[in-house]
Every structure is written in C-alpha cells, then in structure tokens.
C-alpha cells in the first residue's frame, strides 16, 4: 500500500513538473490580447481603443494562439533585449512616463530615432553632429546667443505632410508650457524658438551679463529633443482641452511620426515596431534606402538573466545588457556572439557609476577625511575584475578625475597637477592614517571608530537585482570593515530606491549609487555640474544631478564660467581646478568606468553589425541611438 502511494506521488510530481515546463515554454498566448486591451483603456479613455483597432492589430500574432517567436518572419525581424521592461504606457511623444523604450527614449549616446526623429544625430565616436530632420549646416551668430538651421526639404511626416520649422517651434512652445521632458531639460537654456519658412532660429537664454547661459546645452537640444508634428499637437491639445496634466498622460495612439518605424503591436509580452515603407529618409538626401529589418521586436523579459538566455538561444539579435564574463559566450560556448570590441571592456566606457555621500548626514558632511578614507580603502581592482568581470579599465589605466575614459575628455585637465591627489584604492593604511589624523578614532575598543562620541554606522545602498552594483556595495562594506567604519549593505527594490535617492532631504541612504551622464555634446560640463554644481541642491524629485546635495560655492562659480570659455588653455585650467576640488573634497567617488554604450549581438540571423575595427565609425549604440541607427541600413542576413 505504501509503495503504491509513493509511486502515485512520484507520478503526480512528474506530471506536475512537465506541466510547469510547458507553461514556461509558451508564454500564455491566450490572454495576451485581453491584457493589451486592459493597458490601453487604463492608459487614457475611450479614444484609445479606436486607433488600436485600426492598426494592423487585426493580424496580431498572439491572437492566433501560436508560438509568437515564429509568427514574425525571422529573416525580416531584428530582436532586441535589455531596453523594454514592462508594458508600454503610451505613444505620446509630448507626454511623460511612456515606458516606451523602443520608440520614445533618449539613450546615453543620443536620442533613439526609430519612430520619432531629432533635428540632428550625435556620433560620439568622432564628436560629429549630423543632420537628420535638419540640414547639416547649423550656424551660431558671433556671441553664440542665436542659432539658425534649416529643415530638410525631403523630411515628411507619416501622413505625407512636410516637416516644417513651425513644427519645431510648436514642439518647443508646448513642451515648455506643459513641462514635459524636453521642456524641463532645456528650459533653462533656450529662450524662444522662431520659425520662418524652413528656417529655425533658436534664441539662447541670457544671464545677467547678456551672455548665453550654456550654448552647449543647445547642441544637446539638437540631438536630444524629438520633434512632434504641430498639427498633431493641436489635436492633442484640443482633445485634452489644453490641460497640461491630461496632455502629459494622453496615450497618444493617433500620434504622427517621422521616423522609419511605427508601432505594430504591443502588450506585456513584447513590443513590435514595423517599417514604414513610405519613410522620407529613403530620399537620396538622407539615407538613400530603407532600413533593412522590416520588424523591430523587443520581447519583455523578466530580468537580465532571462534576456541572456534569449540571446544565447538566438531569440535575441541585439542586446544591451550587462553580461558577466561575456567572453565565455564565444570562447567557451562557441556561440556566434560578439561585442563591439573583441577584448575587454567590449564596449565604449563613457560613464562612471558613482557612490554618492549623503551630505544631509552631519557625519559625512563635516568630515572630508572620512569621505576620502572610505574612498581610498575601497578595492577598485576587485570591483572591476569581480563585479564588472573586467569590463572596465582600472583606475591605474585611467586615473580618477571628473572625466570619462575617452581621450577627448582625458585631455581636458592637467594630469600632473592633480597626480598626488588621485588614488587607486585598497590603501587601507593610508585611509587609517587619514582618519587617525582627523581625530576619528576608536575610543571604546569595539573595533569601530566614533565621531562626537557616537559610533559611525553607515549603509551602502543600491537597487536590488542590479547585480554588478550590488557586488560593488559588498566591496565598499568590506573596505569600511577594514578601516574600522561600520558599513552595511542595503538593497531596496528599485521603485523604493528611486523615490528615496531623488529626495533632496533624505537621510535614509548614507552611501548610494547612481551614474552621472555619459556622453553628449555638452559633456563633460554636464557631468561636472552633476558632481559639483549647486543647480540641483534642494530640487524636489531630483533626477538631474548632485544626488548627495554637496554644496561648494567656489566650485559652482568655476562651473558657471566653463560654458562661456572658449580659450582652450583657460578651459583646461578651469577643469583642472575642479578636479582638484573634487579629489580633495570627495563628495562622491566613482567605482568603475562602465561600458554605457555597448551591445552584444548574436549573428545567427543578421550580420554586419558595427564593430570597433570596421572603419565605419558607427557607434555601438544598440543600432538605434543617435548615429548608431545607421547600423540598421547596413545589416545583412547571414548566408
């Protein structure tokens, strides 16, 4: 009897396991359309459904109930991973919170121009700014208070009407009015935009001395702000009765676009864009052809690990993911996978994930020695080799400063002048000596140092699941342990983390991670401002910079001078002074140089992706961002 029961149990378990396996294999195709409808309605009312039904939604692959990977013709579809997490909220280019990574997103190296286009494209590989909607030649007036540019004759909207200067003006005016991303990012730098025929004139905001606040930011606007159609903005405005909140939250399903792709299908499983074969860019004055893949698809994976499995299986062509030990994919597993550069760091390192000290905590704000000691004790080589699996140059290769590791930025400060301030890390003795000297010592013999009679106890925080950052925080905690400062790690969920670290008054996180800006025409200025500037002190919901709320009038004054300085020697001097302040005061410390622009490609179906040695100078910007989109025009099928 017992044996029988046992056997029955085993049989039941086996069946159960098999059943689970099947479920995992075919993502519940049955209820996908239902959820789609749910998202649409919750997004914004009755109107949303009409356009959704008109779209080619009738041939929705998921509705047929078959395995969705096979329905889009594989040889016409380019699959992405690493961008879209969760279902798309909206297609409204003027709105906010769209969660629409493939269509509406500014990447670290320029705007993603698959569906909505910017005036220019940035190529950080050579610093070039190339025309997209606008002609190549933009011009400043003598004192850089005014810029003029002309719109390409060929540029058309998806409804066939030409793109005009009026569209640029209307996009800007309404963006400022309703304070969307474009409006709030550039509002402090651009005063007005005027339209005359196909000529656009951008007037810079002036400071008290009559000089432009920051001309560099106007260059950022050219490559970072997507342009919307004036007529569609009017439709949107009418529909929302001119209410700013309603306009920001409109789902925008009837949106008019100018890019080569448009929405085709989206639910909580994946997002698909399809090629617009009437795209204006096939005109000889632009690309001269259509992009190669007919569909751009992004499966929504649960996490990095799941995306990585997709990439390995050839279900993903292009992935922008941190993959630990990525070289094993080709060295050990022999998969047809490659990265932009064949050797570490595999991508272009443009940003420096940084640990910020919370200056709302007196113990950190008043003790530069403590800040510097912790930063000196951290073993960066270990972080780079273990947490980043060597996908970053070390601080021996590129000594720490405010600059990213590109040659251009490295040349902007005088290395010899600050050499004795730079540290490579793992300097336990030096850090201890620094603390002893500052009088921060262990009086009660519990192994931890005290300040003002109280044990120093800090936490090191980053979002849960961000594995390389989490591992780095373990190293920071270990450094604290080594020098007698208690540091514990804390990994809250991202949705909690983001509300706390952007709060200028928070005292919950002592040492916390965030990355400064990577590359754009206005860098390194923007990044330096994020590290040391006072623009963002006290700003609520602060996503812009200086997350540690560090205040230094002297640094701020120097930063304000930079945008108006054109003399190179003077500029170098200013940057060197700022680096000196940064390395002495240590309001934050970078843990690694991170490949912010990188992609890993699986060449099972497509090939001829850009790579570092092919001489084409197409950046590894996920085939979509800034000039990186040029890659889509040169893809080939594997023979």
């Amino acid at each position: 009897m017992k044996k029988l029961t046992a056997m029955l149990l085993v049989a039941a378990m086996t069946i159960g396991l098999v059943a689970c396996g099947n479920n995992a294999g075919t993502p519940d195709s049955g209820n996908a359309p239902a959820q789609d409808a749910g998202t649409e309605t919750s997004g914004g009312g009755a109107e949303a459904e009409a356009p959704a039904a008109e779209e080619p939604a009738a041939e929705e692959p998921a509705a047929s109930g078959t395995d969705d990977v096979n329905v889009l013709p594989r040889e016409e579809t380019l699959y992405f991973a690493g961008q879209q997490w969760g279902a798309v909220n909206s297609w409204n280019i003027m709105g906010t919170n769209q969660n629409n990574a493939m269509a509406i997103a500014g990447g670290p190296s320029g705007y993603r121009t698959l569906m909505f286009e910017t005036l220019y494209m940035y190529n950080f590989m050579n610093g070039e700014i190339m025309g997209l909607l606008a002609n190549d030649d933009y011009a400043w007036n003598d004192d850089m208070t005014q810029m003029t540019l002309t719109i390409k004759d060929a540029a058309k909207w998806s409804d066939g009407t030409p793109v005009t200067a009026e569209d640029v003006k209307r996009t800007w005016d309404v963006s400022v009015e309703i304070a969307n991303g474009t409006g709030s990012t550039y509002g402090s730098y651009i005063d007005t935009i005027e339209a005359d025929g196909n000529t656009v004139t951008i007037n810079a905001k002036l400071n008290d001395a009559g000089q432009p606040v920051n001309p560099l930011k106007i260059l950022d606007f050219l490559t970072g702000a997507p342009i919307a159609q004036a007529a569609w903005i009017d439709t949107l405005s009418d529909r929302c009765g001119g209410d700013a909140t309603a306009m920001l939250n409109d789902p925008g399903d009837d949106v008019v676009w100018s890019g080569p792709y448009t929405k085709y299908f989206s639910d909580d499983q994946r997002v698909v864009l399809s090629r617009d074969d009437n795209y204006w860019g096939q005109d000889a004055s632009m690309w001269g052809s259509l992009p190669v893949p007919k569909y751009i698809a992004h499966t929504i994976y649960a996490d990095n690990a799941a995306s990585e499995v997709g990439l390995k299986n050839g279900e993903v062509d292009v992935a922008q993911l941190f993959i630990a030990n990525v070289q094993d994919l080709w060295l050990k597993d022999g998969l047809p996978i490659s990265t932009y550069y064949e050797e570490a760091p595999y991508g272009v390192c443009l940003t420096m994930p940084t640990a910020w000290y919370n200056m709302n905590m007196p113990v950190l704000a008043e003790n530069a020695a403590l800040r510097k000691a912790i930063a000196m004790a951290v073993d960066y080589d270990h972080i780079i080799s273990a947490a980043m699996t060597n996908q970053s140059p070390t601080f021996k290769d590129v000594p720490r400063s405010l600059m990213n590791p590109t040659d251009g930025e490295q040349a902007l400060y005088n290395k010899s002048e600050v050499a004795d301030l730079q540290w490579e890390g793992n300097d336990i003795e030096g850090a201890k000596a620094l603390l002893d000297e500052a009088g921060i010592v262990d009086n009660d013999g519990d192994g931890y140092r005290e300040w003002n009679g109280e044990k120093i106890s800090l936490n090191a925080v980053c979002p849960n699941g961000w594995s390389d950052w989490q591992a780095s925080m373990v190293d920071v905690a270990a450094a604290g342990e080594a020098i007698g400062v208690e540091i514990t790690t804390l990994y809250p969920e991202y949705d909690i983390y983001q509300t706390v670290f952007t709060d200028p008054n928070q005292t919950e996180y002592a040492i916390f991670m965030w990355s400064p800006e990577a590359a754009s025409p206005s860098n390194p200025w923007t990044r330096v401002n994020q590290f040391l500037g006072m623009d963002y002190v006290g700003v609520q919901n602060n996503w812009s910079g200086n997350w540690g709320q560090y205040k230094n009038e002297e640094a701020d004054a120097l930063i304000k001078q930079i945008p108006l300085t054109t003399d190179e020697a003077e500029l170098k001097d200013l940057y060197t002074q700022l680096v000196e302040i940064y390395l002495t005061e240590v309001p934050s410390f970078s843990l690694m140089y991170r490949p912010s622009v990188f992609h890993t490609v699986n060449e099972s179906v497509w090939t001829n992706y850009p790579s570092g040695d092919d001489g084409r100078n197409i950046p590894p910007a996920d085939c979509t961002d800034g000039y990186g989109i040029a890659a889509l025009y040169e893809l080939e099928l594997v023979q």
Partner: protein
Amino acid sequence: MKNTLRQVFHSPKFVGGFVIFVAILLLMIIYPLINPGDPLEMIGINTFAKPGTYVSLYDATKAKYEPMRLTDAEDKRLDAYLSAEDRVAMVEWFGLAGIDISNLDIEDTDALMDLWNDNYDPAFKIKGMTKAKVNYFRRLNNSIQQLQSADVIVLADTNEETGELEETGQVNKNDYVNVNSVVNVKFLPLGTDNFGRDVLKELVSAIGTSMLIGLLAGSVATLIGLTLGLLSGYVGGVVDDIIMFITNVFTVIPSFVLLILITYSISQDQRGAAVVGGVIGLTSWTWTTRSVRSQVISLRNRDHVNLSKLSGHSLVRIVLTDILPYIASYVVMAFILQVSSGILAEAQLSMLGLGPKMTEVPTLGLMMNWAMLYSAHTNGSWWAYFPVILTIALISFSLNLMNTGLDQVFNPTLRD
C-alpha cells in the same frame, strides 16, 4: 530513556539520517580548524575560479627545474592549442578563401600550419562571414602562432639602472617543477565564487549559519505550536475556539507569502540571521498546533489525567507531567521537520533577495542568490551552486530520514 534510545538507534533509517547529519556537523566543526580564516575573505581577483590546485607562477619559475623527456608532451600541447574542430575550421577557411587544398592531409599538422601561415591574413575579408567567425579565426591564428613559438621561454627582469630588460633565465619545453617545491600553492577544492571567495570555506560557514537559522526557526515554531496546542486541546471551550480560529486563519494564508511580506517589511540592515530565523518560526507553527491539539484531546479524558484533576493538581502541572510526556516523541519529530523546513525557507527567501544581509554571514540561500545573479548556472560554474544545493538536499534528507526512523519506533501502527 535508555531503552528508547536503544530502540531508536536500532532503526536503520534513523541511523542513516543521523550519520549523514553528524558527518555534516563534523565537517562544519573540523574544516575551519584545518583551514582557518575569514570565510568571506575575497582571495580571488576574478570571478569563478575553477576547482583545483593553484600554483604560483612566479614562485614556480624560481623553483628548481627537473628536465624530463615525456613522449606524449608534444601531442598534448598540440591537442590543447589545435583541436580537431580547429583543424576542420582551418580547412573551411581555406575553402572560403579559395585556396587549393586538394592534396592537404588534415592530420599533417606541419603542412596544415605552413599553409595557414602562408595564406592567413587578418585584414583579408571574406564576404558574408560573421564577426564572430572572423574573431574566431583571429584567435585560432594566435594559438597557432603560440604553438609555433620557440622552444624556450626567456625570463627577463628590468634593470633598475638602465631600464632595459635583462635575461635572468630560460624555461625549456621539457622543464618540470615539483609542486611541493613551489612556495605558494593554494588548493581550492570547490574553486571560488563571483567575489573570489573560497567556496568550500564559505559553504562550511554557511552550513553553520543555516543550521542556526533552522534551529531557531524550529524552536520558535515548535514552542508556539506546542503551547497553543496544549492549551487549546486541554482547556477546550472558548479558549479552544479562539486559538483554533487564529490557527485556522494562519493556516489558510499561504505561510510563504506571509513570510515574504514580513521579511520585506523589515529593513535590510535589521535582517540578521537571528531575525530571519525568528520570522520563519513565526510563520510556520500552525500545523504543530493542530496536531498537538488533536493528540491532547485524545489524552485529556484518560484515567490518569482525571486522577490528577481530582487530586487538585494545577493546570500547568497536569499538562507538563501527565500530557506532555505522552506526546514528547511526536513533538521531537515535529521539531526535526520544522528545522528542516526552516533551512529550506531561508534558502528560498535568500534566493529572492530577502535573506539576511550578506556582508556579515554567508548562508546557503545567499550563496545561491549570488551564484544566480552572476549567471553561474548559465556559464557553467557548477561549483558555485551545485555543492550548495547538494548540501541543502543532504541536510533536509538526513533530518527527514531521522524523522521517519523515529516515526517507526514511536508510532505503534508502524511498528514492525
């Protein structure tokens, strides 16, 4: 008591489980004596070093060389640098590059390599070849060059005065070094994890923490379960109704969900091993209560209990002396199961990132959590997670086996 113990140790199942459990305990106690030090020390610089013996290359070059003539040495080198697949790939490349290979013997290594050296050019582009393939041939070319490098590796040192390299020694292809004569050798039976920690050392320390969490969880759960069960079963009436109501409520709430919610709400810096153990115990007492209660109900009207009541003994005394001894064996078994499920619960929680904070103690679940975060399961680093899974399985297997053995001894219906 003695008799009971003898009976228990006659049960083969119990003895089996006991031996495994004691073996794990012994490993936990003895291994740190052999290999002392901080289990969380990050000795490796890179991630996931393979299990094996690591010899300091620096010291090896300084040790005494013993030249040996081993006939298969050259063949082994060839295999390592130029596998059969590589040979096929070379022929494939010749074909794509349009080179005449009609009289090439694939096994003739010299001819193959000569032809390769004559023709391969990294700059030569073959149309339609993927980047991955191009890179593969470039790497293949590098290993062929290595294979063909001179028979001698020259050791050199920088002269401090002139800054130039000066030859200090040579290593020949047939030089060997006795491992014992190398000063620094590190044996890593289970390699290192993503932080470069010695996995075996960490594992042994993690077993201790996890056992502790399990014991704590088991004690808390058993204590609560037992107290409530005794009260509810013996007192009955309204008390029984209230306790059973609470128990039923907790039974229908899935305890793991409850566990997740509670641990999630405790901030991470407070989440030490003890707290996690306590929380697990607080969410898993219900079935102990129910079964203790039903056993007590069947005992409550026995003659000896009634006799005690008539003698005017207090409630506490009756429960402790007249009821508890009769269900003690059952409670011990329930306790063992609670310990086992406590260890599993910790592993599950830590996998979800809700375990104890990592910087202080390693636990079995945290080891798996980090292995998963760093894709050990997909990049073939089995040593980072498989021994952990095996350990968890062995611990709960041994505990369950012991429990079954006890059951056979104490449960009259199962007695042989």
